[in-house]
């Protein structure tokens, strides 16, 4: 019966959430990114722009101290080392991950996701890694598991400090992917009727249970992350999936088009902020 009551609550909340009809317009990604950055820098005037990549630790001093204690010898170090070994290990055909990427895969994290004109879709780093494996006759890795996290951890690590450089080519399909990602970010879902923005735009810095919510600006720069709550590493895919379940929404399949578009949007609006992954988070 408790859930029955919740249903009524959820419906009531939905009714009150009815917004005045918004004017339909095509958005301007450059203006979006400027507004996004302005929103967060005005909300947290004491936080330096490049420090937003450290999530809640940029905002909460007590948490920052715990984090710094943990960063003295970060728990993602083992994963990072595994990732480095995996990256160097040749496939059975003798080729390497390095052969699939520009610059041998080193220092390129900031260029992902990108819009692939040939396929007409957004390609994330995780997707590119599995495409590379499949092109070389290897089975794909699970998107939400530790091996994928280890590989992306290593690739992020070699890119630390490089600013996100996401491009939206002059292609209506790329623009549409960006728009879809933006819509996904702001759309309320799950029984709790939360959007990504409910937590990471409207209430960052506040506590949800014990966790201090991270601002959306720079949130993907730290990926993948070691979460104490998981006792292990998680990819962008894993983070999106858990966010969905936490608001009691059924997650989409990893690397679903919606998730890739969301990553495209979120990365784009954090352009200029440095890659800081792998990160450690509660």
């Amino acid at each position, binding site marked *: 019966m408790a859930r029955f009551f919740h249903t009524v609550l959820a419906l009531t909340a939905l009714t009150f959430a009815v917004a005045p009809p918004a004017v339909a317009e095509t958005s301007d990604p450059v203006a979006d990114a400027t507004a996004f950055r302005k929103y967060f820098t005005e909300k947290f005037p004491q936080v330096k722009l490049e420090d937003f990549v450290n999530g809640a630790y940029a905002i909460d001093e007590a948490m920052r101290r715990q984090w710094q204690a943990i960063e003295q*010898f970060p*728990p993602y170090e083992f994963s990072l080392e595994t990732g480095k070994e995996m990256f160097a290990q040749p496939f059975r055909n003798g080729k390497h991950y390095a052969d699939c990427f520009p610059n041998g895969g080193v220092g390129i994290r900031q260029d992902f996701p990108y819009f692939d004109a040939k396929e007409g879709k957004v390609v994330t780093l995780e997707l590119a890694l599995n495409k590379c494996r499949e092109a070389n006759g290897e089975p794909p890795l699970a998107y939400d598991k530790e091996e994928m996290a280890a590989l992306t951890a290593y690739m992020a690590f070699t890119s630390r400090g490089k600013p996100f450089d996401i491009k939206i080519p002059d292609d209506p399909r790329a623009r549409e992917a960006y728009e879809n990602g933006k819509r996904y970010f702001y759309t309320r879902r799950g029984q709790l009727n939360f959007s990504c923005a409910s937590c990471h735009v409207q209430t960052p810095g506040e506590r949800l249970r014990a966790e201090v919510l991270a601002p959306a600006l720079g949130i993907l720069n730290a990926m993948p992350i070691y979460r104490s709550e998981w*006792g292990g590493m998680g990819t962008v895919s894993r983070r999106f999936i858990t966010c969905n379940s936490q608001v009691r929404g059924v997650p989409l399949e990893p690397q679903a088009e919606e998730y890739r578009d969301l990553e495209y949007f979120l990365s784009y609006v954090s352009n200029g902020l440095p890659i800081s992954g792998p990160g450690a988070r509660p």
Partner: protein
Amino acid sequence: MASSIRVRAISSGDLTEVQVLIQHPMDSGFVKDGKGEIIPPHFIKELTFEHEGKKIFVADWGTAISKDPYVKFSFKGAKKGDELKVMWVDNKGESDTTTAKIQ
């Protein structure tokens, strides 16, 4: 196989600061897995540090040490280039040893 032990030992003046991180599940025996079955305890009980054959720090650990445990301490009497031996043994009798150079 890579060691389960990562050591950072940095000498500064007379003092050497030692930090280690060990890859170990540190299962307490109080946690259930996805199927609702208790994960049996599996944790490091003793961690020993030796410098020139002398024990300089011994940690006795129970079940409340975090997964992938970390410890930091400092000691006197070592210099750069000296070797530091680190060894652990857990409740199942498994163990690992490594030797690190003080930097």
